[in-house]
């Protein structure tokens, strides 16, 4: 049994980046460009804590919302360690890279503070031991990503991209939240720790509630938006408007990995046929479409963005397969992709920095000017293309194996899975080689290359080194000397994503030494890819023509239509509702109340109780006086006459209170009525005796609405007085003397039982006085003329 993690280490791990982000403004002011190394040091400290936690397993929590069984809970296992290590480790490298890339740029404070906050949010997602905590940090990553993608806020593309990324990921997060709530209501707790401790019990609870498919769909949408799966992939290519280190960090190793992380996290609980049938087609379709789009890309980062989408599709499909190899695919490719893709993003930034262009067509033959970078790129890009013995090859092998296993098992249409995987891999190799080709061939004469700063070269070297090491592991394993530590670690991550009853074998990967179905598929894909690359211009032309014929595949259109359509629709609604006429608002309010209450009564099947009038003659006469007064106020020819009529209403109501055994209310009312009368007369003296003419049609319309409101009130009163609800009045009457020592129950309620309410009410009175003072006494100090 592994030791359980220490809560305070976890709190420090997640809290440190946020604290560091808060301190960033002061740091930037003090050390300027060196802030990058401050941030890198923070990331390194986080990485150290991740490593320190690596040996532990289990949850640690403090209660947050007790009644809802929500806690600030953290959970540590292999999966958390892997993604946490990527978030902090790649963080260190990206911050070091930023030292060169962001040097002397404006907005450094914003940049580093947001990057640190993002890292904290990502660590929060990864180590969350509670669904609510996970959701909160999940949305925080979206917020941070919004700020980072929109870093160059003065350009239109940045703002568009930031908003797009935000809307898509946050919108998906809301679907995920609904899924979480359903999941928690079925299982009975929000605690991930509890669910993952007994996944089988959680799963059967979900199945018994009949919620498996909805939960899988909702959580799947959340993951698909974050990890840019079809048709939500639209945000990622646009998000390339961000500074390159941001793309390297968010769009290769962390933020987009949150989605697949979520799938891995909930895989033990939710896996089943629904899960497979949803995620495998989704992942493979994304893999194929995005690979094709990447082939058509004309810019470095655009190619990488589509490639990221494609590889995320691979991971999603891997996690989708129910077999162990599927989990191995997802986990191992998660690691491989982070290494080679982060390296390639950094290379892309470096090349653009050195040459001043980001267009693929303008680049070529850079290997003489940037030899180190050329080596890095070759290692990383061949890994991306799945060429043996580079790292991407192994995880792709696992995918072939998983899809083949599934096809053999299910037969029929399931054979599409291996087929799509192979075809997608063909395109993957094409764009990988295309990326590589900027270093080979002839250098365009117009190209002017600067030597890049060392801080720009070192981080991708480290990442490519990691990728190469992963690839080397496979070669070493072929010769019987596998990297045991690495395999053991990946194995522990795989175990975290398996349902408990699975018979897992130890994780192992190696270059193949015999012909297996997966090897054949690899061979086909590589041969196809190589052939296509030789004629890649032709391939690109064909694919571009296809895309132009069917713009739906570009899929920007649905987003634009939705968002800009919503903008226009809300403008239209606003014009219709916001007329500036008080009467319009009042009429809508009354009509709304009518509809809602009427609908409610109808839905509840209200039967209006009727009886003969039981009220005494005195009270009836008093009420009649009030009614006459009110009608007189409506028909009053002048304001003063209206006030007179109103005081008839007021005093009639006073008498009503007296007769209705409400002496306190009556006493108050009689005094207030008098003072109101005086204030009215004082103010009316200053106002014109204007009285608006009523057109007949308007009067008729208002009269209809008024009569409807009156009828609703009559029905409500009948229903309310006809019912005999449980009253808490008895409690107050019984307890007034023994508990509060007072006989006047009304006063006891006011000052004792419901004292806090009274507190609020006297605050309202004081506020009214303050407002009157402001309106009258202080008006000369305001900006009004």
């Amino acid at each position: 049994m592994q030791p359980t993690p220490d809560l305070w280490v976890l709190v420090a791990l997640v809290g440190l980046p946020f604290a560091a982000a808060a301190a960033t403004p002061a740091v930037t002011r003090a050390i300027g460009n060196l802030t990058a190394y401050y941030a890198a040091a923070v990331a390194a400290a986080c990485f150290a804590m991740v490593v320190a936690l690596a040996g532990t397993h289990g949850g640690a929590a403090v209660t947050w919302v007790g009644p809802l069984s929500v806690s600030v809970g953290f959970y540590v296992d292999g999966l958390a360690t892997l993604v946490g290590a990527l978030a902090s480790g790649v963080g260190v490298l990206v911050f070091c890279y930023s030292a060169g890339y962001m040097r002397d740029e404006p907005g450094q404070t914003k940049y580093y503070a947001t990057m640190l906050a993002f890292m904290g949010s990502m660590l929060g997602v990864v180590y969350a031991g509670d669904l609510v905590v996970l959701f909160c940090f999940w949305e925080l990553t979206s917020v941070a990503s919004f700020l980072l993608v929109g870093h160059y806020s003065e350009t239109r593309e940045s703002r568009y991209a930031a908003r797009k990324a935000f809307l898509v990921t946050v919108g998906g997060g809301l679907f995920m939240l609904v899924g979480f709530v359903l999941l928690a209501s079925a299982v009975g707790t929000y605690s991930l720790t509890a669910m993952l401790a007994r996944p089988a019990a959680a799963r059967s609870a979900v199945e018994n509630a009949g919620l498996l498919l909805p939960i899988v769909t909702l959580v799947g949408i959340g993951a698909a938006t974050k990890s840019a799966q079809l048709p939500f992939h639209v945000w990622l290519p646009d998000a390339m408007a961000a500074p390159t280190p941001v793309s390297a960090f968010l769009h290769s190793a962390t933020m987009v990995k949150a989605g697949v992380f979520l799938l891995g996290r909930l895989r033990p609980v939710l896996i089943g046929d629904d899960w497979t049938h949803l995620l495998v087609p989704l992942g493979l379709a994304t893999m194929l479409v995005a690979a094709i789009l990447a082939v058509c890309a004309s810019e470095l980062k655009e190619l990488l963005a589509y490639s990221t989408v494609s590889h995320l599709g691979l991971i999603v499909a891997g996690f989708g397969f129910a077999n162990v190899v599927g989990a191995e695919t997802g986990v191992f490719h998660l690691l491989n992709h982070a290494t080679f893709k982060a390296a390639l993003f950094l290379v892309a930034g470096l090349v653009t920095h050195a040459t001043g262009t980001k267009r693929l067509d303008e680049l070529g033959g850079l290997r003489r000017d940037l030899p180190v970078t050329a080596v890095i790129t070759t290692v990383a890009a061949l890994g991306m293309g799945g060429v043996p013995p580079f790292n991407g090859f192994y995880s792709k092998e696992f995918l072939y194996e998983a899809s083949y296993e599934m096809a053999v098992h299910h037969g029929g249409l399931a054979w599409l899975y291996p087929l799509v995987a192979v075809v997608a891999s063909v395109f993957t190799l094409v764009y990988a080689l295309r990326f590589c080709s900027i270093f080979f061939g002839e250098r365009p004469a117009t190209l002017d290359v600067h030597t890049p700063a060392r801080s720009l070269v070192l981080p991708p070297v480290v990442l490519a080194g990691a990728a190469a090491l992963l690839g080397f592991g496979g070669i070493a394993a072929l010769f019987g000397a596998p990297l045991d530590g690495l395999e053991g670690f990946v194995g522990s991550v795989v175990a975290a994503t398996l349902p408990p009853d699975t018979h897992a074998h130890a994780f192992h990967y190696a270059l193949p030494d015999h012909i297996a179905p997966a090897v054949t598929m690899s061979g086909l894909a590589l041969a196809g890819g190589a052939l296509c690359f030789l004629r890649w211009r032709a391939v690109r032309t064909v694919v571009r023509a296809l895309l132009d014929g069917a713009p739906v595949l570009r899929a920007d259109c649905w987003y634009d239509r939705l968002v800009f359509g919503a903008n226009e629709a809300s403008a239209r609604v606003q014009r219709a509702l916001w007329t500036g006429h008080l009467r319009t608002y009042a009429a809508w309010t009354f009509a709304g109340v009518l509809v809602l209450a009427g609908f409610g009564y109808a839905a509840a099947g209200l039967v209006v109780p009727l009886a003969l009038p039981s009220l005494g003659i005195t009270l009836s006469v008093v009420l009649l006086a009030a009614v006459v007064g009110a009608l007189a106020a409506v028909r009053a020819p002048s304001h003063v006459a209206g006030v007179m009529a109103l005081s008839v209403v007021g005093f009639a109501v006073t008498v009503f209170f007296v007769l209705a055994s409400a002496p306190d209310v009556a006493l108050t009312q009689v005094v207030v009525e008098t003072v109101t009368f005086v204030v009215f007369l004082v103010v009316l003296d200053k106002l014109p005796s204007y009285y608006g003419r009523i057109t007949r049609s308007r009067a008729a319309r208002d009269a209809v609405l008024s009569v409807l409101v009156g009828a609703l009130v009559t029905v409500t009163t009948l229903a309310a007085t006809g019912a005999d609800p449980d009253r808490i009045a008895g409690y107050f009457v019984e307890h007034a003397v023994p508990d509060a020592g007072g006989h006047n129950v009304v006063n006891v309620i006011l000052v004792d039982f419901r004292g806090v309410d009274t507190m609020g009410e006297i605050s309202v009175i004081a506020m009214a006085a303050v407002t009157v003072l402001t309106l009258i006494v202080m008006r000369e100090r305001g900006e009004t003329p």
Partner: protein
Amino acid sequence: MTLILRTVTRVVLPLGFVVSFAFFLQGHNLPGGGFIAGVLTASVVALAYLAYGLDGVEHDVLNREVQTAVEHVEHVQHGIVRDYQTLYAAGLALAVVAGLVAILYGVLTGTHLTFMTQTYRSITVPLYGHVELASAVVFDLGVYAVVVGALLTVISVVGAE
């Protein structure tokens, strides 16, 4: 008219104060309490304003100079409006303190009372007899002060216009 009103006001004013005081005191056991007493006090003062005018009350009763036209502020700033503001602010503070005392008491005695918990004691006063003294009276006094202060602020500000 004014003469009659002033004469009546002279008689009614003290009576009104006494009645409102009585309402306040008996509030816990008979109809009355801070709200009613406050409204009554305010209305009695309003009557005095009607009879004597704001300046009259300020000048004759309180012996204060009426400040007029302070720089560009054309509104007449009566010192008494300041006093009313102080009154409702103090009332609000008193009410809050009356609630907080319970917490403090709870902490000191370890009984964990919540905000606004009230209590009472029965005491015997010589000659008068049995009296129940409720801690809620303090809160009620705060209510009274807020009602009087706020209503009179409104009335005097509106009246001054």
